[in-house]
C-alpha cells in the first residue's frame, strides 16, 4: 500500500517538472518580465515541493499509525472485558487480534477476541482511508503554495539550493544517528553486564569460560553464584589471543606488503604496474570465509603434518595458521596504501638525492621511506585494526578454547570468535553470558576506534607536510 503511494507521489511530482518549466516560460512572456532563475529551476522547485511534504507526512504517519491503533485496540479489548496484568500480556493479546484479522490465528477464538478483531479491521480501514485523503490534501496544498510562489517570480534557484542542502544534511544525519544508535545499544547492554560482573574482574581476569553463566537470569544471581561467576569473564586471554594472532598477521603482512608497495611505486614499469596492481588487489576481494576454510582445511593440517614429521605437537587449529592467512589477506591493504603514500613523496626529493650521487636503493631507504613513514605507519595501523576486527578466519581456523599462551602452534581464541560463539544458537537475553558479547563488542569497538584515530592523525600529519 505504502509503496504504491510513494510510487504515485513520485510519478506525479516528476511530471510537474515539465508543467513548472512551461508555466514559468509563459509567465515571463505574458508579463514580459525577466525570470529570477532558469525555467528548469522552477520545475525542480515544483517537484520538490509537491513530493517532500507528502513523503514526510507519509513517513510520520507510518511511524505513528501502529502505535495509535495498538493503544486504541488494547483499550477497546479491555472495555470488552479482556484481562491482562502487565504490558507483555497486553502485547500478546494485541498480536492475537492482529493474527485473527490476517487469518493466521489457529487457537481458540472467544467473543472478546472476535469483537476486537472486527474493530481492529474497522480502525485499520479508517486509518488507511484518512491517510490517503490527507496525503492528497497535503499534495494539493503544497502544490498550490509553490505555484503561487512561482507566479510571483520567486528566487527559485536559491530555494532549490536550500532544499537540496537540507536533503543532503538529512542523509548525513541518518548515517551519524545510526552510528550513535549502535554505540548506545552496545553501551546499554554492556552496562547491564558490568552491573553483574565487576569491570576490573572483566578487564584483568585471566580465565574466560562464559558457559558457566549459561541461561542464568542476571537479576536473580545469588551472592554465592556471583562469586563463582566472578572469574568466568576474564578478558585477558581474549585480548592476548587477538593481539597474538594480529601480531602474526602483521609479521607476515607488513614486510611483504611494504616491499611490494615499494616495488610497485619505485621499480615497476608502467606496464607491470598496470597488470600486477589489480592482481594484488584481487586478494582484498576474496571473501574472508574463503580465506577461513583455506586456513582451516589446508594450512592448519599442513602445519600439523610438518610439525609431526619433526616431532612437534601442532594443534590443527593453530594461531599460526590463522595469523598467516590473515596476514595474506591484509597484504593488499598495506601494499596499496603504502604504494599511494610513496607515490606522493615529491619527485624533487628523489632528484635531490640522485644529484648527490645516491643510488636508487639508497634514495628509497634514506629519503623516500623516511619521508613517507608517517603515512606508512598510518596504513599499518589501519591494517592492525582490520586484523583485530577480522572474524571469519579466526572463527574457522583459530579455535575456541581461551588458552593464555604464546605458543603459535597451540589453538587460541579471539574477541570476535567469542562474540560469534556466544551469540549463535538460542540465547537467554538476561544471562550475563549473552550480555558479555556486548561488552566484548564495546571493547573491540573502542580499541579499533583508538587505532583508527591514531592512524588518521598520522596520515594527516604526513599530508600537511607536502601540500
Amino acid at each position, binding site marked *: 500500500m505504502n509503496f504504491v503511494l510513494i510510487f504515485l507521489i513520485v510519478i506525479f511530482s516528476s511530471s510537474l517538472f515539465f508543467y513548472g518549466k512551461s508555466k514559468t516560460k509563459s509567465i515571463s512572456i505574458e508579463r514580459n518580465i525577466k525570470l529570477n532563475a532558469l525555467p528548469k529551476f522552477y520545475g525542480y522547485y515544483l517537484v520538490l515541493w509537491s513530493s517532500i511534504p507528502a513523503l514526510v507526512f507519509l513517513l510520520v504517519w507510518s511511524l505513528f499509525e501502529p502505535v495509535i491503533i495498538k493503544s486504541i485496540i488494547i483499550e477497546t479489548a479491555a472495555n470488552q472485558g479482556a484481562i491482562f496484568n502487565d504490558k507483555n500480556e497486553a502485547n500478546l493479546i494485541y498480536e492475537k487480534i492482529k493474527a485473527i484479522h490476517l487469518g493466521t490465528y489457529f487457537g481458540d477464538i472467544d467473543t472478546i477476541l472476535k469483537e476486537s478483531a472486527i474493530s481492529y479491521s474497522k480502525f485499520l480501514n479508517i486509518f488507511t482511508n484518512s491517510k490517503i485523503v490527507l496525503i492528497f490534501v497535503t499534495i494539493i496544498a503544497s502544490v498550490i503554495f509553490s505555484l503561487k510562489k512561482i507566479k510571483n517570480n520567486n528566487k527559485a534557484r536559491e530555494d532549490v539550493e536550500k532544499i537540496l542542502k537540507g536533503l543532503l544534511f538529512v542523509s548525513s544525519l541518518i548515517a551519524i544517528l545510526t552510528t550513535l544508535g549502535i554505540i548506545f545499544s552496545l553501551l546499554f547492554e554492556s552496562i547491564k553486564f558490568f552491573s553483574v560482573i565487576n569491570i576490573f574482574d572483566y578487564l584483568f581476569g585471566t580465565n574466560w569460560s562464559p558457559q558457566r553463566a549459561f541461561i542464568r537470569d542476571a537479576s536473580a544471581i545469588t551472592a554465592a553464584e556471583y562469586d563463582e561467576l566472578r572469574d568466568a569473564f576474564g578478558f585477558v586471554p581474549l585480548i592476548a589471543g587477538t593481539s597474538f594472532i594480529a601480531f602474526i598477521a602483521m609479521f607476515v603482512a607488513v614486510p611483504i606488503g611494504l616491499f611490494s608497495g615499494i616495488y610497485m611505486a619505485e621499480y615497476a614499469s608502467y606496464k607491470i604496474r598496470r597488470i600486477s596492481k589489480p592482481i594484488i588487489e584481487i586478494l582484498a576481494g576474496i571473501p574472508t570465509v574463503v580465506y577461513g576454510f583455506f586456513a582451516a582445511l589446508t594450512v592448519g593440517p599442513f602445519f600439523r603434518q610438518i610439525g609431526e614429521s619433526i616431532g612437534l605437537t601442532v594443534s590443527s587449529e593453530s594461531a599460526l595458521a590463522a595469523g598467516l592467512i590473515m596476514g595474506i589477506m591484509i597484504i593488499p591493504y598495506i601494499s596499496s596504501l603504502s604504494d599511494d603514500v610513496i607515490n606522493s613523496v615529491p619527485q624533487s626529493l628523489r632528484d635531490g638525492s640522485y644529484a648527490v650521487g645516491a643510488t636508487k636503493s639508497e634514495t628509497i631507504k634514506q*629519503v623516500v621511506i623516511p619521508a613517507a613513514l608517517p603515512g606508512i605507519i598510518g596504513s599499518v595501523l589501519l591494517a592492525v585494526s582490520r586484523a583485530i576486527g577480522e572474524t571469519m578466519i579466526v572463527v574457522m581456523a583459530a579455535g575456541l578454547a581461551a588458552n593464555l599462551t604464546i605458543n603459535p602452534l597451540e589453538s587460541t581464541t579471539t574477541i570476535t570468535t567469542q562474540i560469534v560463539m556466544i551469540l549463535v544458537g538460542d540465547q537467554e537475553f538476561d544471562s550475563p553470558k549473552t550480555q558479555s558479547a556486548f561488552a566484548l563488542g564495546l571493547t573491540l569497538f573502542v580499541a579499533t576506534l583508538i587505532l583508527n584515530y591514531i592512524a588518521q592523525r598520522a596520515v594527516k600529519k604526513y599530508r600537511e607536510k607536502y601540500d
Partner: protein
Amino acid sequence: MSEAKIKSNNLNVFYGDKQALFDVNLDLNEKEVTALIGPSGCGKSTFIRCINRMNDVIDICKVTGNIEIDGVEINDENLDVVSLRERVGMVFQKPNPFPKSIYDNISYGPKIHGKGETKSELDEIVERSLKKAALWEEVKDRLDEPGTGLSGGQQQRLCIARAISVNPEVILMDEPCSALDPIATAKIEELIDELKKTYTIVIVTHSMAQAVRVSQKTGFFHLGKLIEVGKTEKIFKNPDNKMTQDYITGRFG
C-alpha cells in the same frame, strides 16, 4: 680565457618520439659561470640534466652524441653514474631539502660516498659546506632542526651546501632563484660569484638581468637548438643572431 671543462658534441635528446635537443655543440669553461637562456621548453634544462645524467631517471628519455668532462666521455653506458654525480652537483628550481635535520641534509652526500668516517670529520664537512653556502651563521645553533623549517632562500642555500658537500667540480643550477624573492635572489647571486672561484658553474635562468650579473659566458637556446653562444657581454650588447637580439630585447619569449 680558461680551459674548456665540459664539451658537448652533436648532442641530441629524445623524450619518446619528441626530440628535445638538436645537435648541441657547447663548450663550458672551467671556473666560470655559463648562463643558459631561452624561452620555456627550449631545452636548457634538458641540456644541463645531460651533464650529470639526471635524464637517466626518466624512462623514455634517450640521449645520443657526446659529452666530455676533462676529456672523458660521460654519455657512456658503462660510466659509473654515482661517481659522475659526485663530481657534478646540481641545484634545482624549487628548493628540495630532505625532511631531515639541517645537519643530516648536508652529511647525506658525504656519508653515501664514504667520506667523513668519524663524527668530527663529518662535522667539519657540514661546517665547511654551510660556510661556503653562506648559511653557517644563520643556522649554526640549530643544526638539528628540520631543513624544511627554513625560509625559501635559506632552503635553496641549504641545497647548494648539500651540492658542495661532496666536493664536486661542476655545479649545475636549474633556475635556482625562480622560486625566491629579490633579496634571497641577490644573496644567491653573490654566492654564485664566490663559488665560481672553486667550481665550474652552469646556470639556467629566465632572468636576463641575472644572466648579465652572474655569468661570463651565455648560450641562447630556442626550440631545442643552441642559437648562439659567446661572452655574456657580447651576447647582450651585440648579438650576431637576429633571434637572440629579439629575445634579449623582449620581443618574444
